[in-house]
Structures are given as C-alpha cells and as structure tokens.
C-alpha cells in the first residue's frame, strides 16, 4: 500500500477530487496548508504589481491506495492539478506498512 500526498492549488481541489473518484479512490483527507517551493512564494506579476507573499495558500490531499493502483492515481492527480503556471504544487508517494480501519479493526488492503 502507498500513501499519496498532493500539494495543489486550492481551486484545483474540485478537479482533483473528481479525478480521484474516476480512478476509484474511495476516501481522502483534505487539509488547508501553506508554503512555498522553488519560486519562494512569488506569484506571477498581476496588473503591473508583483505580489510578494511569503507563504502561498495550498491544499494538501492525502489518499491511501494499493500498490498496483498507485501509478494511475499519481497520473490522475498530476493531470487534474496541472495549469502549467508556477505554483502548481507537488505530488509524492511513500510506502505504507499497516492500515487499520478504526471502526471494524480490518487491516491491510481491506481497510482502504
């Protein structure tokens, strides 16, 4: 199993949600986040004025998926979150040993 974390632009959340549903992902955790990457928080020049923001608001999406699905899910997220401009975000995945559904105590892929 894998944990996929995606940091995306807030307005792309609806698209990413739809794409994940398409890809068969049944649940996700969404939180409000802020941070910066390579561009150090600069957004593009807007109407002649450059807005300097230290931390840019982002949305963090986390999903647990089975090993076999994970490449597809990564692709789906990247495609849905893409605008081609700076600050589109990042997606990564890490292996997960154990998952337990709290209500039933099911373990492993059953709990996804």
């Amino acid at each position, binding site marked *: 199993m894998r944990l996929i974390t995606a940091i995306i*632009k807030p307005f792309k959340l609806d698209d990413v949600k739809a794409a994940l549903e398409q890809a068969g992902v049944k649940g996700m955790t969404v939180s409000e986040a802020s941070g910066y990457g390579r561009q150090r928080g600069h957004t593009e020049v807007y109407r002649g004025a450059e807005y300097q923001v230290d931390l840019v608001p982002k949305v963090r999406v986390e999903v647990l998926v089975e090993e076999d699905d994970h490449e597809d899910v990564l692709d789906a997220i990247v495609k849905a979150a893409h605008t081609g401009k700076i600050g589109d975000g990042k997606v990564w995945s890490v292996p997960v040993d154990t998952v337990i559904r709290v209500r039933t105590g099911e373990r492993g892929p059953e709990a996804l």
Partner: protein
Amino acid sequence: MSRARSYAAARKERAADIDRWLTDLFRAATAQPYGREGRGVAPGRGTPDRFDERGAATHAGGGVALVAVGSLGRGELAPGSDLDLVLLHDGRDDIARIADRIWYPIWDSGVGLDHSVRTPDEAAKVAREDLKAVLGLIQARHIAGDAELTRAVREVVLAEWRAEARHRLAELREAADKRAESSGELAFLLEPDLMDSRGGLRDVQAMQAVAAAWVASAPGPRVREAYELLLDIRHALHLVTARGTDRLVLQEQDAVAAALGLLDAEALMRRVAEAGRTIAHAVDGTWRTVDRLLHGPAPRGRRPLADGVVEHGGEVVLARGVNPRNDPVLVLRAAAAAAEAGLPLSPAAVATLAAQSPPMPVPWPAEARDALVALLGAGRAAVQVWEELDQAGVIVRLIPDWERVRHRPQRNPVHRYTVDRHLIETAAGAASFTREVSRPDLLLLAALLHDIGKGWPGDHSATGEIVARDIGARMGLPPADVEVLATVVRHHLLLPETATRRDLDDPVTIKRVADAVGSREVLELLAALAVADGHATGPAAWNSWKAGLVADLVRRVRSVLSGTPPPPAPTLSPEQAALARHGGGAVRVVGGQVTVVAPDRPGLLWRAAGVLAAHRLVVRSASAASAGSTAVIEFSVVPEYGSPPDPATLEADLRLVLAGRLDIEQRLARRTRSLRPPRVPVAPPRVTIVDDASSTATVVEVRAHDRPGLLWRIGRAFGECGLDVRAARVETLGAEAVDVFYVVDRAGRPLVDEAQRAQVRERVLAALR
C-alpha cells in the same frame, strides 16, 4: 406539539434499585465481628467475611453512613450517570476496610464511581474550600447507616452555606459565568452540552443552591418542566449512545428524537432551544437577586440615556411619564441605548414595550432605522438585548420574516449556532469593521440579514436577496441603498467561495467578481461581511488560510474597480443664497432643522456645532457651504433626551458665540464630565486624507463612533492646525459618523506637504480619543 416521552419513572426506579444495592453493600461491609468495641484491633483479626446481621445493625447505628450526592442524590440518575458517593464516619480505624468493601464491588460492576471518605469535620472543611463539594453536600441524600451522622453533616454544611452566602454565591456566580463562557448557550448551539451550557441542567441546580441559601425562591413550575425535559433528553441520549455523554451531537439527534417519540431532530432541537431559553431567562433573574445581595441595593439615581429611556439601578428602564402607546420607535431607541451602555433592559420595561408598543409604521421612520443600526453597532452588547426583545416577541413584530429563522437548527458541521443566533452574532462581529466601509449602516443590516433566506427552500443567497429587498424597503431605506443591501446578501458567499475555489491568477476570475460586485463600496461591504460571517459560523469556517485567500482576492478585485469619489462640496440652494445675500447673523430653528447664516470665518462650523452639543442636541447630519463672504450651515438635529431646547435661547447662544462672548469650551467640558463613559468597546476612529477628490481643497474623511460634541472636537482640531473648513458633509448612520471635510490652509490652498498632512491626521485622531 406532542409531548416527549418521559423517563421520570425510569429514573426513579433506577435510583431506587441502586439505593437497594448500595444498602446491601453497606450492610455487608459493616457486618464485622469488630467495630466500636473492636477499635484499635488490627484489621485482619477475627473472621471478616462472616456476615453478622445483628452486628451490621449496631455498627450501622454507630458512626458510619453512606450518602449519595450528585444525580443519585437528587434521584435523577440517567443510564450513563456516575455514582457520587460519600462515606461519612466519626473517625473509625476500620473505615478504609469498609470503604474497600463498598467501592470494589461498584468498580467491578462497571458503573462509574466518584467517591470520598470523610469525617464530619473533613466534610465541612472540604465544603468550605470546594464549590463542587458543597453543592453536592447541600443536596446530599442519606442511603444507609447512621442517619444522624448524615443529618448532622448536612445541617452544618447548610448553615455555613447560608452564613457565608455573600461570598459563596459570588463564587457560584463566577463559576456559572465561566461555565457559560466555555460551553456556550443551550438554545443556540447546534451541538449543545445539556449539562454545562448556559440554560442547561447545571443552571437549574445553581438556582436550587441559591434557594438553599435563602436568597431567592426555588425554580418555578415552568423551569422545573424545562428541567425535566432536559433530563429526559439526557436520559435518551445515554440510552442511544450507551455512554454517559452530555453533548447532544448532530449524529445522535435523530436517534434521540426517535427515542423520545418526537418527529425528528429539528423538533427535538426546537424543544431544547425553548427549554434552554426558559432556564437562561430564569437564572438571569436569580443572578440579579444575587447581585443585589452582593452589591447592596442599586443606586437610586436615574440617568437619562436617550429620549424616554433612563438608567436605573444597573438596568435600562423607561422614563417616568413616557407612553409607549404613541411612540413606536421607543422600543428600538431603548434597545439601542441599553446596548450602547452595555446594560440589560429591565424585564419590566421589555414587558411594557412588548405589550404596549404600536406597530411600527411601514416604511419605518429614519429614527427607527438609526436606532436599529445603533443597536447592532454596539457589538457584543447587542446580542443580549436582542435576545431579550426576541423572547418578548418584539423582533418578529418588527421584522416578520425573522420568524422563519428563529431557533432554526442548521444541519451543517461547520456551523455552531442556530440561524437566528448566527445572524445576530455576525452583526455583532461586523460592528468591529464599521471603519473599513463607507456605509457602516448597510454593513450591519446586511450582516443581520445575510442568511435570512435560510427560512425558505432553495438557494439561501437567492431567496435571501428577495427577502432582504423586502425588508430593506420595509425599513424605509432609499431604493439605491435597498439595491446595495440586496446585492450584498445575494453575494455574501462570493468572496470566500471564489477565493478558495477559483484561480486568482486568472483575470477572468477577477473580472467575474468585479462584474458581480460592481463598485468598491460593495466590495468593502462584502469583504467585511465575509470575515464577520466566518467568525460567527465556527472555528472550522474561518482561519488565516482562508482570510489570506479572501484578502488576496479583494486586493485584486479592488484594483479593477473604481471607487466613487467622496460627495462633492455642497452648494447653496437658491433659498440659502437668498439668505446669504442678507448677510450675517441669522439663525433659524424650524423643528429639527437649524440654519445658521453668518459672515464666513475660520471656526464658524465647529463653534456652531459646539453650541448645539451644549444644548443637548445631537447633530445627525450637517452641510456647510459658503457664498462669497457668507457661510450657510444647515444642521439636522435631534434632542439627546427630553424635550428640545427653546429655540430662542439656542439662537441667543449662537449669536453670543459668533460674537465671541460665550465660552463654549467650558460648557462642553462640564457636560462631558457629567456623561458616563461608554462601557461598550467601539472600533477606533479612522481619519483618511482622500487624494484627487478636489482641486481646490484637501478632503479629509473621518469615520468615528458618534458622541456628543464630535463635530466640535474635529473642527477644533482643524482650527489648531491652522486650517479652515470650506465645506463639509456630516452624516450619522446609526451610531457611526461618516464625515467629509473640505479644508484649506490660511492662504486658502489645499495641503500638499506630506508632513503637514500627517500632522492633521494625528491631531484629528487625538481629538477623537
């Protein structure tokens, strides 16, 4: 409404069962072959496990008793309640052993136990030090053993509670306030705590404790009924969740309603709200009685607050000889005065106003609108006053559409309050943003009405727009203002929704918002409302993340919208021009209109304003303009309270001041001293120098909370800076003044020097402090 199922019999039965069980445990525990005569004998000797009925009887009569406090003590045991037990003894050595033999079986049975072992002296001591302990002990109930011991302890504890009522009740009140602050109000929370919320079970128990101190009477039948209902709901909640929880969370509400035989969660929550309001209202009365005990009788003086409204003994009451029957605005004036003074309306005044006020004429007179805006502008203090009026049915009579949102629960996890409380909380919160907008009155009204559409099916923003337009017209707002109000209600979610869901870097997003909003004024209103709305919704609805996104959106939209310049300097009407041609020295008083015509000279405007303030006249609006060497100033004024001053004296004083023969400053200072400082915190004043508004004068905009002599203070500050006020437009919206002054320096030129402009801003701000 059908009655909810009662669990009173089940509770009684359960308490009786537990009593029997505890009595048996107690008997077994005290049935020892040693006892009084066996004192000092080390435990373990003899045959402890042999049951000796006779022995138990003798020991039970001698120096040990099992006492129930808390819900078992009151015989109100819900399925998930813990047992609160006290083992009283007169200093026996074997008490630890007896205690073990009672507590262990209880623990083993899985019932929660809150236990203590005390001698009478220890019990009295802990009662003196611990509020919770004393509250338990004054309602303690004897279960088994030495009844005389229980009686003696109760007697001592009660006697001390009465003797020390003064500071114990102060402690009780403080604890109740803290509890209410952390748990909120039963009637308005979507997931209330039945025990600890204001208006919850704990409040009734506090009333009983006050009654036990012989300070106020015990809760009446309505309160007892509400109390029983809450006990039943708590009982059902324990059954449904199989846990001793007191918080009625959303996901359990349907099941609890079903257990009680009620239609659905909404029917349940409306009943909870009703019971909560009944109890909160009664407990307020009890605390007022307690306060009288604590602080002695209220001062007898009556201090006027507004026309027909006076402060008396820490409450706001109607002035003597006022007849609410022919003054429809009195109710709102009294409410505004109470909120602004941070005082409650007296229950008698509310009852009189509710019973006798005639219907408000439709459209409302301007005075009624101003009073409503002033009430809302008082911020936090408005919430309590609003609640008092609403309980008496006054709000629904003023705004019939309010009925549809009253007590309306919201099945939405981010919301914390019922719709009506959310609206009034938003308005109270919006009061701190009155300086951010050019129309504080519309901000407050929009905040009050933004979710009014939730009373109807469909998208609440769309229905809300229609209802708000109706209400705006009913309140007598000019058509242009009604449109702004309706637009703000329609789009109250536009900024937060766009900011979190649309690409702010996309010019199309910005353009779409700009098109919907139309002007900077509306944008300001929406931005302030978004923050107030978010705060009043709940912790999940607003945070710095969202605030940052909304602020970014507002900044971008503002850059594509142009603002309306401040109103142009007023010009003279033909009639005024005719007056001016006659030259100086004329003062006309017609009703609430005061016209001053005098040779123009520095300081004329504010000196005239000072005279009006010294005569207890509040300037609602003013415009000043000059023609050649003659100035014409029009004031529209209302008396602060009482009858308006005699026009003749007013005129005489104005002439004296214009002739420089009356020290207005001294008179105003005297009046200011006699005024009571406002208790309610208000947003700090703001002074802005508006660029590009006029080529011949510098335009200074002042936004501040209105108070007597405001215009005089501002004008004098200009005078001290060596400036002359060429023209002015002064407006008071509710309790908020938005004033625009056109000023020039001694040479008649606008101010260009940045340092000088900063100094002007500083001086005016200092004068407003």
